[in-house]
């Protein structure tokens, strides 16, 4: 956190709106900086959440695919071919889901960064 004297009341304070605007701006920059500093721990818990989401996503689609395969196999009596086929489809779907989640998280992070920069300026 940097303190330049421009944002201290008293120092160079001529009471005009211009100096008020300058002090406000400096205060805003400082707050923005502080928020950026806090993003360290916040980012960690968010990253943990993202990891958990990826893990669940990866398992869920494989489970669903395998389940569909088992049910169809029982119904049509084609053990084990549809199970194998739908297991593979489930794997592909899982990676697709993870890819989409990654894109989504990426976009969100970019938007947050852009919003943070706009606030900081």
């Amino acid at each position, binding site marked *: 956190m940097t303190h330049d004297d421009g944002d201290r009341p008293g120092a160079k304070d001529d009471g005009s709106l211009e100096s008020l605007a300058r002090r406000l701006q400096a205060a805003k920059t400082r707050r923005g900086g502080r928020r950026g500093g806090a993003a360290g721990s916040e980012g960690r*818990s968010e990253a943990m959440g993202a990891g*958990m989401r990826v893990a*669940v996503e990866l398992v869920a*689609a494989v489970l*669903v695919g395998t389940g*569909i395969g088992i049910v169809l196999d029982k119904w049509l009596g084609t053990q084990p071919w549809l199970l194998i086929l739908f297991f593979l489809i*489930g794997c592909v779907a899982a990676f*697709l*889901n993870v890819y989409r989640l990654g894109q989504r998280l990426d976009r969100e992070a970019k938007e947050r960064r852009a919003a943070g920069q706009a606030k900081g300026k």
Partner: protein
Amino acid sequence: MAGPLEQFEIKPIIAIEIGALDLSFTNSAAFMVAAVGGSALFLGLCMSGRALVPTRWQSLAEMIYEVVANMIRDNVGSEGRAYFPFIFTLFVFVLFSNLIGMVPGSFTTTSHLIVTFALAAAIFVGVTLIGIFRHGLKFLSLFFPHGAPWWTAFILVPVELVSYLSRPVSLSVRLFANMTVGHVLLKVIAGFIALLGIFGALPFLFLIPLTALEIGIAVLQAYIFTILSCVYLHDALHLH
């Protein structure tokens, strides 16, 4: 001493059996009623003043309202406003279930997969029906990316179908896993306190921030559960 998994046991309070069906009113059902009653009471009491300048309690209730309203605006768009009551109810119910579960000695309804899956399945079926009623057969274009060559449909359609069907599973497993893991962890660490005697102070100190983290997770998971429901609703309304 109670084992770490005993807290998840379902015990019937009032046994009701109709034919072969076991419809007992269990502790799980009791805590679901508590979540509904508690949230109704909380919001009712908070908003009883209805002042223009809100009191602390009223601004708490208004904060929840605004969180959900922002969530719908950002993730669904203006068409999502019609579904606000449902999304709000969902968020408050999951939030209260999670938080009531943090009260020592209580039962966490959301730590049972069947409860979260029932919620997720209801959302999934509802959202799919909304999509079908809105777009008719065009809804099926959700399963085929726009602009792909037609012969890739043999691979893409099953993959997209499985991906779509995995949504309620991932939605419910995430909430269930987070709540169960958290409660087991708390119980195991708390068990160490009794076992270690005087050195139990160490796990006790560790337990305090862990409880705070667990409360944070309870709120965060309710938020994520609701936000993903919003995302699914968006897909059904806009078809990508």
